[in-house]
């Protein structure tokens, strides 16, 4: 014992810390190789759970000569590289929890039997104390992280609830239902209804990637952006385009928002929609379930995106389901996914509304298994158009006029006059008629110029139909989806006056603002635009019908 130097004692007092790691691969070897022969006063050594050194230490009690070990062990190589000569396992309750690692004695002699006995005794006392310390530290860390997580969840839930609508729109002839249930970890789902001044309703359903507070904050900001521009822009594609540009500057990298935006005209059932990468809505019709497809990238991923805008009509008796991916991407215990076909079948089998929501939720619970935790938020919104006496069966459209015009500039004036004659006697105010005429003129101009490229021998075909509720004018050209069709971007007068935009580009803007509905249809080379205006007393007659029901 007399030749033991204080230096070796110091190194014995610095155990190599073995972090019980779950890693499956080899131990982390200290990056600096055996450049220094002496043991460093303190170093970390990660020993992989499958390293043979662990089993060896647990079997062989007492100090071990590192140089004498014949093990294919990354940990042993690391110890040797550090100049370790002797290790003393710290074992408690049969489990290796650490090692005392000693370097070369300063006298360069081997460790004596006495030395080894002393070290064994020390290890026997140190091991349980070290274990207690480890356990306390683990528990503290677990507690802190659990508390932080729970606090975060409470905040996320508060944010989330703040932005969900408190009431649903009450529309005559329609039934709207909504359901939202957060997962325990709270995703970033949201939905909203905004009633526009003209009585139409802007509806949005969205989902933020990621979970917890970050997702909730992005959701809140997306929600506000959507609210602020939905009232001004009205067109769902313009809203998504605008919000995407604003969001792109704000959103953290690798986060994005999928979003479906639509405008419902309760009077006609016309739904104008655009989609930023969100799950497709389903519509249950007489002839089966259809998906409403419109292409567009999720919000916040890339700047200057455009969104396809499409139109569908919900007939009386039709129902629509908007949903978030928490449902279709739910898993059964065997990892099978709930999937879209299953959801589509449920939509097909239910009339819609709360009944559909109940059926979908019941099927979801059955599918994921009893007691299983919901993986992601679930959002469901249903729109149902009531079957009313007024709409019993197909409301027949009467053809009021059907004619062709040569594709020559200026012929739009003739189209205006012939439309005015065709709708004479219908309940159209002077204002509505003027608006319809302007929309017809602009659409006919586009057909002449962009569709038929001013070829006089290619005609523009115009049909006028009427029902007790509306008049529709369909204008068809032979240009298909003309490559030089005017851009659908909303014109910005400030930019035009500042010379940042061409003064032109008002055609589509005028068309959309002049009539109640614009639908576009392309079949082969035939490109049709249908303009619909409600007759001026249609709204009141519908209201009285609703009362009779």
């Amino acid at each position: 014992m007399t030749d033991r130097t204080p230096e070796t004692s110091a190194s014995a007092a610095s155990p190599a810390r073995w972090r019980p790691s779950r890693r499956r691969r080899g131990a982390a070897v200290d990056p600096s190789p055996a450049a220094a022969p002496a043991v460093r006063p303190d170093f970390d050594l990660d020993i992989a759970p499958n390293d043979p050194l662990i089993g060896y230490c647990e079997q062989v009690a007492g100090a071990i000569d590192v140089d004498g070990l014949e093990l294919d062990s990354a940990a042993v190589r690391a110890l040797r590289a550090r100049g370790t000569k002797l290790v003393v396992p710290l074992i408690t309750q049969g489990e290796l929890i650490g090692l005392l690692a000693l370097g070369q004695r300063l006298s360069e002699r081997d460790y004596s039997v006495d030395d080894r006995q002393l070290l064994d005794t020390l290890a026997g006392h140190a091991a349980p104390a070290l274990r207690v310390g480890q356990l306390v530290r683990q528990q503290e860390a677990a507690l802190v992280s659990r508390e932080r997580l729970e606090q975060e969840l409470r905040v996320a839930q508060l944010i989330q609830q703040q932005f969900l609508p408190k009431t649903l729109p009450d529309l005559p002839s329609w039934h709207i239902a909504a359901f939202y249930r957060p997962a325990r970890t709270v995703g970033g789902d949201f939905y909203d209804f905004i009633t526009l001044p003209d009585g139409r309703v802007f509806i949005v359903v969205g989902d933020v990637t990621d979970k917890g507070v970050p997702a909730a904050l992005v959701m809140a900001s997306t929600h506000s952006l959507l609210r602020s521009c939905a009232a001004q822009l009205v067109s769902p594609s313009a809203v998504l385009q605008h919000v995407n540009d604003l969001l792109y500057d704000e959103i953290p990298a690798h986060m994005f928002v999928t979003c479906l935006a639509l405008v419902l005209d309760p009077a006609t059932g016309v739904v104008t929609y655009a989609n930023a990468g969100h799950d497709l809505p389903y519509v249950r019709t007489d002839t089966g379930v259809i998906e409403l497809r419109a292409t567009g990238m999720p919000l916040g991923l890339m700047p200057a995106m455009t969104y396809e805008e499409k139109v569908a009509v919900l007939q009386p008796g039709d129902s629509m389901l908007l949903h978030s991916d928490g449902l279709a991407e739910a898993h059964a215990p065997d990892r099978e996914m709930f999937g879209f076909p299953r959801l589509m079948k449920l939509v097909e089998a239910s009339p819609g509304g709360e009944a559909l929501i109940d059926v979908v939720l019941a099927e979801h619970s059955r599918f994921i298994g009893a007691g299983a935790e919901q993986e992601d938020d679930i959002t469901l919104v249903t729109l149902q158009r009531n079957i009313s006496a007024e709409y019993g069966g197909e409301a027949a459209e009467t053809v009021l006029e059907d004619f062709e015009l040569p594709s020559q500039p200026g012929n739009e004036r003739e189209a205006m006059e012939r439309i005015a004659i065709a709708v004479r006697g219908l309940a159209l105010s002077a204002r509505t008629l003027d608006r319809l005429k302007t929309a017809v003129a602009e659409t006919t101009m586009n057909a002449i110029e962009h569709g038929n490229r001013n070829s006089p021998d290619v005609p523009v075909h115009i049909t006028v139909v009427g029902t007790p509720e509306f008049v529709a004018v369909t204008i068809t050209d032979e240009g298909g989806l003309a490559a030089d069709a005017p851009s659908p971007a909303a014109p910005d007068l400030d930019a035009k006056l500042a010379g940042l935009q061409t003064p032109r580009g008002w055609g589509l803007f005028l068309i959309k603002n002049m009539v109640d509905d614009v639908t576009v249809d392309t079949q082969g080379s035939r490109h049709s635009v249908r303009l619909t205006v409600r007759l001026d007393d249609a709204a009141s007659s519908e209201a009285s019908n609703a009362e009779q029901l």
Partner: protein
Amino acid sequence: MQSSCDVTVRRIPGAVVLELRGELNAAATDLLLPTYREAVRDGNPQSVLLDFAQVDYINSTGIALVVGVLAQARAEGRTIVACGLSEHYREIFAITRLSDFMQMFGDVDAALVDISRA
């Protein structure tokens, strides 16, 4: 295409009136802005009145021409006043926000009364 629009320039102290007639469409492309430039060359009028009373059709190209004149006038520090628009075209000027950038009057006389008061 035959020109279906013409413009008469009428000068009064401090202002100039462009009386438009016919259709404000592509046919007026080479007419409206050159006439405006010609009209403001002498006397540097502060206000330019566009009189639409005898215009029976304005299409999107016509709107673009009005935007062009308005942009030019603003660059020169002049005021554009729109007179005699029908209800329908007043609505279109509102929707396009042109009415945010020009005063609107029922006819030229009302506009001139307002200008002389200012």
